[in-house]
């Protein structure tokens, strides 16, 4: 019998190469990501005992999840605290980074120096150093009641304002916002960079046209710049949410680390999955909210 040689189209031949190119990643994705993910899912639904280096599982259903919310002493407060911190900090962070990026986009003397300084937090704050700077990591000192970081403490200003007789609520508000500026500045390195790139990608002709037509700076911003950088605002928001949630200083993370070190894998898995579901929900909400309002210049 003669088999007629099937002539594959160029597209089909080429598409096979696509698989070759991403083959490495698919392999890693399955073995180093999906498999551990599902194993961790199974762990969260069972009670885990480690004996002689091997894991013994016993299915207990949703008990770990319920325990995390009702039984565990520290998880509910840590969870709520992390959630509120992330939700309240992210809009501030985005607005702050946008403002900084707009300022940094202008032409002024020493612009590259300022840009260099502003990007420094990314180098430093990505990891452990920021904790030490903030004074978080000196446990013995927290126990003894002394604050270990003498930086950016506004206590003397607080006392001054109290002596002046200003209402204590306003004092706490101002103190918190000032402390917040420190946090915001150190967390906004990459966001500023992305916004800077986005601002520079807006076509200059639009600005020229608007100037000819006589638009004020305010109108220019809201009608031209803002819609065109909407996609990057969404990207930045999602990135900030994820970054803040996975960072090392959130209470939930510390709790999970605690449990992992005590080899209580079941509770730790359940908590990390709860974490993950929350992040996923928030990111999906952000994505859908932004998608309806985004306008792409070139589609």
């Amino acid at each position, binding site marked *: 019998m003669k088999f007629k040689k099937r002539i594959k189209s160029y597209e089909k031949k080429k598409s096979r190469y696509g698989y070759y190119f991403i083959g490495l990643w698919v392999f890693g994705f399955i*073995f180093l990501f999906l498999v551990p993910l599902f194993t961790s899912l199974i762990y969260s639904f069972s009670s885990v005992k480690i004996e002689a280096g091997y894991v013994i599982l016993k299915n207990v259903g949703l008990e770990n999840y319920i325990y995390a919310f009702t039984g565990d002493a520290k998880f509910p407060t840590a969870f709520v605290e992390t959630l509120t911190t992330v939700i309240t900090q992210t809009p501030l962070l985005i607005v702050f980074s946008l403002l900084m990026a707009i300022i940094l986009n202008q032409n002024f003397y020493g612009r590259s120096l300022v840009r260099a300084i502003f990007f*420094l937090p990314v180098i430093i704050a990505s990891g*452990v150093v920021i904790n030490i700077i903030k004074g978080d990591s000196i446990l013995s000192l927290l126990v003894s009641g002394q604050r270990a970081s003498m930086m950016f403490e506004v206590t003397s200003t607080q006392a001054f304002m109290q002596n002046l007789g200003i209402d204590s609520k306003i004092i706490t508000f101002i103190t918190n916002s000032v402390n917040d500026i420190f946090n915001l500045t150190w967390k906004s390195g990459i966001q500023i960079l992305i916004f800077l*790139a986005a601002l520079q990608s807006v076509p200059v002709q639009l600005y020229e046209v608007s100037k000819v037509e006589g638009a004020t700076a305010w109108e220019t911003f809201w009608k031209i710049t803002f819609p065109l950088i909407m996609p990057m605002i969404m990207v930045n928001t999602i990135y900030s949410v994820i970054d803040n949630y996975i960072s090392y200083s959130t209470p939930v993370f510390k709790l999970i680390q605690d449990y992992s070190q005590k080899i209580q894998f079941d509770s730790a898995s359940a908590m990390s999955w709860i974490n993950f579901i929350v992040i996923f929900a928030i990111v999906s909400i952000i994505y859908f909210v932004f998608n309806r309002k985004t306008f792409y210049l070139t589609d």
Partner: protein
Amino acid sequence: MEKIGLFLILLKEKWDNKDSYLKDVRFKVIVHKVKSFFVGISIFVLLFGISFIILYPLLYMLSVSFRVPEELFDPSVVWIPKTFTLDNIKAVWDITSYPSAFIRTMSLALLSTVCQCFTCSLVGYGFARFKFKGREVLFMGVLFTLIVPPQAITMPLYLNFVHFDFFGLGSIIQIFTGSKFDISIIDTIWPSTISAFFGLGIRAGLFIYIYRQFFRNMPLELEEAAYIDGCKPFKTYIRVMLPNTGPVALVTFLFSIVWYWNDFFYSALFFNKSRPLSVLVGNLAYILDTYRTDTGVALTFGQTLAYLQVACLLFILPLLIMYIFLQRYFTQSIVRAGIVG
């Protein structure tokens, strides 16, 4: 007196009879100049303040590191230490055995970064230029790896690497030799390297996304020309696409090194005994506490603080040096990489 009054009336008439257009413009120009002056001043104050917030911890670190610990709380010493000492640095150097930790961390970061650059570029090109079935779904998977918090997969990953059997090859060999072939690669740099090589390094999904955007923005004609000249896709990739990835590869390289150097989570996970620098610095408070009980030498509060600052300084010093030399590339390469639009 009347002369001055007449003179003023004359001025007023002249002013009134002037062309109202010119009057308007002059007035507006003055207002504009005053406004931009004040705006300039406020921007300067804002930028200066925020730069101060950013630079102050660094300067503080520098200042404290060279100070005798007793002077930490001395209010008369603001920036320049009264007694200049290198004792703090020596002490931290010994406690953390800095040279070996440094070499370990550096090799980890470099090797993983190189692997990541290689893999992310390949994968990005695959997603950008080839239409195969399931492309969208798999790319969703790429973004998915960014969203999942690492805590959700750490423990099985750890167990995987403790009894590492080369993804099932070991069990195949077991069929032949009858004994289980798995080795523990914890405490080496291999877990991170293997993860990076298979496209799952730290924030690898982000790099794959960046590469995909970049390759998408490259003109299609280049590849068609290469095809006409007889290049298979791999050759096209190596000869045509790769030389153009300068800016993007630089972005990937720099960010990846910073993230691997600073990483605490994966380093703490994969290393138990010989820890890289990030873990050492992160745990320094505990280490200092145990040092106190181990050697019987009590560290004063000031000494603890000073040692922490020195450790931070030693830790970020390589990154700072790299940043000073390559700073221009950091900020400009993201713009040039064209990840936006």
